[in-house]
């Protein structure tokens, strides 16, 4: 069967599965809609969290980024996993004991202030929309390459599917489709990785094959370092970024992860505090399966790519004899070849011998073709990329819809609406959020890639400190938290806007504050927030007695009960 037939078959089957789950898990209460009724098992929640978290960026782009960045790509590996340790030990169990539906709920209640709640709502909605735009675009790209439909049609199909299960099933529908999507995406990621590892090194486990000797002799990493130096790149296993910048970016990504509302709400869906801890353990285990494989995939892909383009002899391959995948991807414009020296041979290098322009995003998607794997594996990768993008999009859309219906309408503007009305508003909000997300996918604003740093920076500089201090410092009060969040957000947003939009020409290490790039500045914003919140809280009156009791209450596990209105 052709790749296209396989793709229709596998993608079609996986989509029917998601729709089936959506119909089975319809909900009729706000508790079911916001937190899946609070009855999800820690194992299922771990898988759902992993799928929720691993986006089109993790599945499609990350290995490609690492492949081109070598050791500098480590910031994504550690940055996007290390945050779970913070989540497990500093946030998840306490927020579960608090037992409400959303992150703005906690901020608003703990700091007894609708201003704080509003700041949190605005951040949650902004962070989620930034993020969801990229997911919808990912869906469109997968559709256009593998099913040869226009990107826009792909986006619309993706919107329809997400709309169906997010609006019908709310958190319950999302949770169980995410479990299914995790299974699809991890299988789709590991199968080609195992195949390629066996082809190159004879090891079944890519994590070992990555450092092992190759079938034709010599360690893979040594060969990669040799090839890189020969072609004018820096050695694969050494970095080019400054240590302070790597430190700051990793830290910003870690605390940003721990502060992302769509990840945090997943911990509200389990029955007990101890289950919230276990969920975090399972989540990171399931995430690490992909994240420890990704750097192996990156290294394999780089070796394969260089040797297929430059040839085993390093002289360049004749374009007329080039493998089919180069022509396939040239059609999408993601690979370009320009025969500069007119010898009819392709050549890839860092210096002026280079004749190739290769988009980093294709490394995972093209990998099975490069390694000449069977057609069904290529189709499986397409289904995996879609699963990764749709699961994350759904989680984000739920955050947007609950921020509007619960935090903004029920808690602030229309306090006397019934549960039924609130649920209706939640679904209406989800509908509009899906439509806006789709439009962002169809007409991607030029700055989508530029603002991803925003999502993490803002989560790091706003939510993370406010939640941590709300739990660990009983003295933290309304005045402190609001000033801390405002200072953190203004500083971080200002720095990013300055270097990305006002003065992009000056965006280099010599102009950065202490050599920290806009991607890493959230870590400074977070520290500023903590210092400001702490200082102002201790200079003003302590929070009222019932808030101090609330803090005592969330610090011990007993008496959690299901997530609910109090």
């Amino acid at each position: 069967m052709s790749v296209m037939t396989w793709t229709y078959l596998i993608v079609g089957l996986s989509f029917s599965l998601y729709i089936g789950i959506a119909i089975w898990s319809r909900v009729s209460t706000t508790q079911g809609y916001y937190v899946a009724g609070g009855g999800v098992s820690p194992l299922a929640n771990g898988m759902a969290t992993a799928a929720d978290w691993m986006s089109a960026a993790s599945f499609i782009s990350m290995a490609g980024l690492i492949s081109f960045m070598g050791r500098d790509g480590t910031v994504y590996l550690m940055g996007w996993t290390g945050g779970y340790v913070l989540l497990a030990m500093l946030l998840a169990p306490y927020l579960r004991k608090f037992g409400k539906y959303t992150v703005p709920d906690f901020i608003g209640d703990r700091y007894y202030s609708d201003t704080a709640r509003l700041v949190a709502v605005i951040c949650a909605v902004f962070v989620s929309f930034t993020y969801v735009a990229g997911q919808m675009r990912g869906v469109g790209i997968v559709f256009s390459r593998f099913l040869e439909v226009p990107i826009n049609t792909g986006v619309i199909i993706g919107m329809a599917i997400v709309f169906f299960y997010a609006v019908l099933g709310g958190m319950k529908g999302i949770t169980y489709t995410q479990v299914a999507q995790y299974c699809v995406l991890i299988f789709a990621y590991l199968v080609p990785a195992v195949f390629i590892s066996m082809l190159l090194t004879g090891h079944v486990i890519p994590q070992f094959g990555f450092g092992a000797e190759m079938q034709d002799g010599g360690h893979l990493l040594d060969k990669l370092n040799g090839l890189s130096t020969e072609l004018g790149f820096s050695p694969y296993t050494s970095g080019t970024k400054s240590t302070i910048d790597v430190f700051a970016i990793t830290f910003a990504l870690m605390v940003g992860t721990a502060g992302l509302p769509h990840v945090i709400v997943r911990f509200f869906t389990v029955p007990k505090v101890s289950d919230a801890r276990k969920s975090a353990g399972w989540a990171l285990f399931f995430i690490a399966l992909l994240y420890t494989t990704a750097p192996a995939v990156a290294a394999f892909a780089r070796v394969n790519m260089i040797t297929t383009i430059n040839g085993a002899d390093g002289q360049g391959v004749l374009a007329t004899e080039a493998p089919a995948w180069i022509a396939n991807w040239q059609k999408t414009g993601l690979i370009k070849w320009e025969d500069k020296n007119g010898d009819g041979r392709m050549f890839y290098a860092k210096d002026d011998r280079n004749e190739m322009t290769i988009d980093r995003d294709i490394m995972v998607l093209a990998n099975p073709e490069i390694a000449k794997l069977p057609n069904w594996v290529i189709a499986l990768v397409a289904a995996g990329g879609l699963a990764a993008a749709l699961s994350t999009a759904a989680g984000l859309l739920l955050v947007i819809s609950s921020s509007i219906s619960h935090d903004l309408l029920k808690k602030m503007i229309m306090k006397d609406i019934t549960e039924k009305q609130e649920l209706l508003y939640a679904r209406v909000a989800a509908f509009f959020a899906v439509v806006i997300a789709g439009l962002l996918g169809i007409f991607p604003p030029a700055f989508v890639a530029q603002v991803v740093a925003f999502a993490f920076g803002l989560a790091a500089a706003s939510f993370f400190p406010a939640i941590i201090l709300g739990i660990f410092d009983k003295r933290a009060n309304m005045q402190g938290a609001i000033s801390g969040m405002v200072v953190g957000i203004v500083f971080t947003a200002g720095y990013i806007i300055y270097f990305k939009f006002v003065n992009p020409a000056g965006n280099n290490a010599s102009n950065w504050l202490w050599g920290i790039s806009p991607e890493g500045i959230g870590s400074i914003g977070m520290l500023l927030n903590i210092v400001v919140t702490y200082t102002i809280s201790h200079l003003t009156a302590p929070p009222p007695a019932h808030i101090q009791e609330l803090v005592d209450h969330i610090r011990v596990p007993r008496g959690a009960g299901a997530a609910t209105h109090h």
Partner: protein
Amino acid sequence: MSKEREGAYWKENLRLVAALLAIWFIVSYGCGILLVDWLDQFHIAGFPLGFWFAQQGSMYVFVVLIWVYVFRMNTMDRKHDVHED
């Protein structure tokens, strides 16, 4: 439940978290970033050691740390009689 008991539970909890986060910091920021070049002179299973910590080892340790936390907290909850039923 007495305030004293809660206080003792909270202190022990903070000590555990501080110890685990110290390890978290050492394997990631220590071995994977600050000491990475120095560690690269050693090798493990074909990897330069610093590079291995950065792209593999730190993540394995993260997973183990969370599970150690899960089991230690479950024991601690019972010891201080604050566990759920």
